[in-house]
């Protein structure tokens, strides 16, 4: 009986995290079209509902009622499994993200490791989709994506090692608590190179522009999801946007102080804004980083494939290795105000 009760409470918590998340995913697609529209001096979608605000709902309805076409020689089971495999890890990772002090679904002691393991699982969706479609364009996209994600995961992992050295813990709640003080205590300052490497690797791992060679519509049509339609395609789409929000949430938690107020420690503004609850700050930080994702897409042309590999292996990994040494010396020398 007690177990049943715990399970029900956990399920309710999961719903409380996932319902806002999925709404955010829907409106992120709207925000993307609007933001990029204004950047290109257009207006963007403005027909469905007041000022276009019902556009994501209309899109979802359209995708739901479309037929899911399965190619003749496709592997039927894997073809339908792939979108689920792509989407699952993007949702499961939210279990260890703290929304406030102790406001966390599972205060896992090996939280950062768990995140690394889950983000590395996302690639299976892409690989399985590419193979199961039985199409050469989809397969090329899958191969590109696999090589890219395996390469960038190393740099990403090293960036997270820096965070865990600075925080002295793998638990994300502890990581945020270690950044307490003021905006200058947050890890973006002592770990600035790692922050940049993490965020850019995050863009690469989510297959977003300018690293979207897995889709590469000008070369390989739409890459791994070229044969998908209807809801099966929509789930891939959802996974991409959920991953964007996840990477932004992780970067804000680990480098931008998570739920901490940016006005903390400032004489007048600090107490003035202390009434704002932690999750609001987290959402503001996530939105700020998400804007960069959209901005990148509107600004940069796609990287050439060999340039992506060069950036990952010859630039990011050496940068993180050197900075890990610096962080190690900082921790050893107890350099204030971050490592004491």
């Amino acid at each position, binding site marked *: 009986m007690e*177990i049943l009760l715990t399970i029900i409470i956990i399920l309710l918590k999961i719903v409380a995290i996932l319902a806002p998340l999925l709404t955010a995913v829907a409106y992120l697609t709207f925000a993307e079209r609007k933001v990029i529209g204004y950047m290109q001096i257009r207006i963007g979608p403005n027909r469905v509902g007041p000022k276009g605000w019902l556009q994501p709902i209309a899109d979802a309805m359209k995708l739901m009622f479309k037929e899911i076409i399965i190619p003749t020689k496709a592997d039927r089971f*894997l073809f339908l499994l792939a979108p689920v495999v792509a989407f699952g890890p993007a949702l499961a990772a939210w279990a260890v993200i703290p929304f406030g002090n102790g406001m966390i679904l599972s205060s*896992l*002691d*090996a939280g950062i*490791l*768990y995140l*690394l*393991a889950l983000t*590395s*699982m996302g*690639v*299976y969706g892409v*690989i*399985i989709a590419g*193979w199961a479609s039985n199409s050469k364009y989809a*397969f090329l996209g*899958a*191969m590109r994506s*696999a*090589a890219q*994600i*395996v390469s960038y*995961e190393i740099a990403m992992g090293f960036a997270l090692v820096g965070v865990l050295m600075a925080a002295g813990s*793998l638990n994300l709640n502890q990581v945020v608590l270690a950044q307490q003080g003021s905006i200058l205590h947050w890890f973006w300052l002592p770990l600035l190179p790692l922050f940049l490497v993490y965020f850019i690797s995050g863009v690469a791992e989510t297959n977003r522009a300018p690293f979207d060679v897995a889709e590469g519509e000008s070369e390989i049509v739409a890459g791994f999801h070229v044969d998908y339609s209807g809801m099966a395609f929509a789930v891939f789409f959802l996974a991409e946007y959920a991953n964007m929000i996840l990477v932004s949430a992780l970067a804000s938690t680990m480098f931008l102080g998570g739920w901490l107020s940016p006005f903390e420690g400032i004489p007048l503004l600090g107490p003035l804004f202390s009434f704002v609850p932690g999750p609001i700050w987290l959402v503001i930080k996530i939105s700020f980083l998400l804007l960069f994702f959209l901005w990148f897409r509107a600004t940069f042309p796609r990287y050439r494939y*060999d*340039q992506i590999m*060069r950036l990952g292996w010859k630039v990011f990994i050496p940068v993180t290795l050197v900075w890990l040494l610096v962080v190690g010396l900082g921790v050893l020398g107890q350099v204030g105000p971050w490592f004491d």
Partner: protein
Amino acid sequence: MGFEKFLFYVFALILIFAAVRVITVRNSVHAALFLVLAFFTSAALWLLIEAEFLAITMVLVYVGAVMVLFLFVVMMLDLNISPTREGFIKYLPVGAAIAAVIVIEMVLVVGSGYFSSDQYQLISHPSDYSNTKELGSVLYTFYVYPFEIASVILLVAIIAAISLTLRRREGVKSQNPSQQIRVSRNDRVRLVNVTAEKKQ
């Protein structure tokens, strides 16, 4: 039967099923995916004995990296399974002999009593006990030499593997990015004053 025991049997059944399917399924990509499932389930089993660091590392290394590359190769090769099934009867005696040797070895090792459950009682820890921290503090103090030697051996293996694939060939064209960046306008653009054609 406790909830944990129930979970153990569920995961154990999935693990055995996945392991059997790895060698019986006809399609090699399906076999690799069943191996992924097997790794994942064994990680879940490790979680049940509170070895969360090992479990997550298992998923991270085997599922996240090794099997991705494995699938990469298997998918590219486009293996056809039917010719490999030929000669099954011919090789059966050799296979059976090796299998028998392995079974005898396993029985001797497992049956020796050294690995029996009363030798290894499961020690339960409070929820604030960090498996990862304990492992790190032992690895970098007490076992630091074996640990470092193992990592050096791995490094040697990496360098050897890379140097085996390095083949210098004549006439290979490749870009040099730093050279490309250093190019200035004067190297590439030449302004030519062309005299306008006169009216006749």
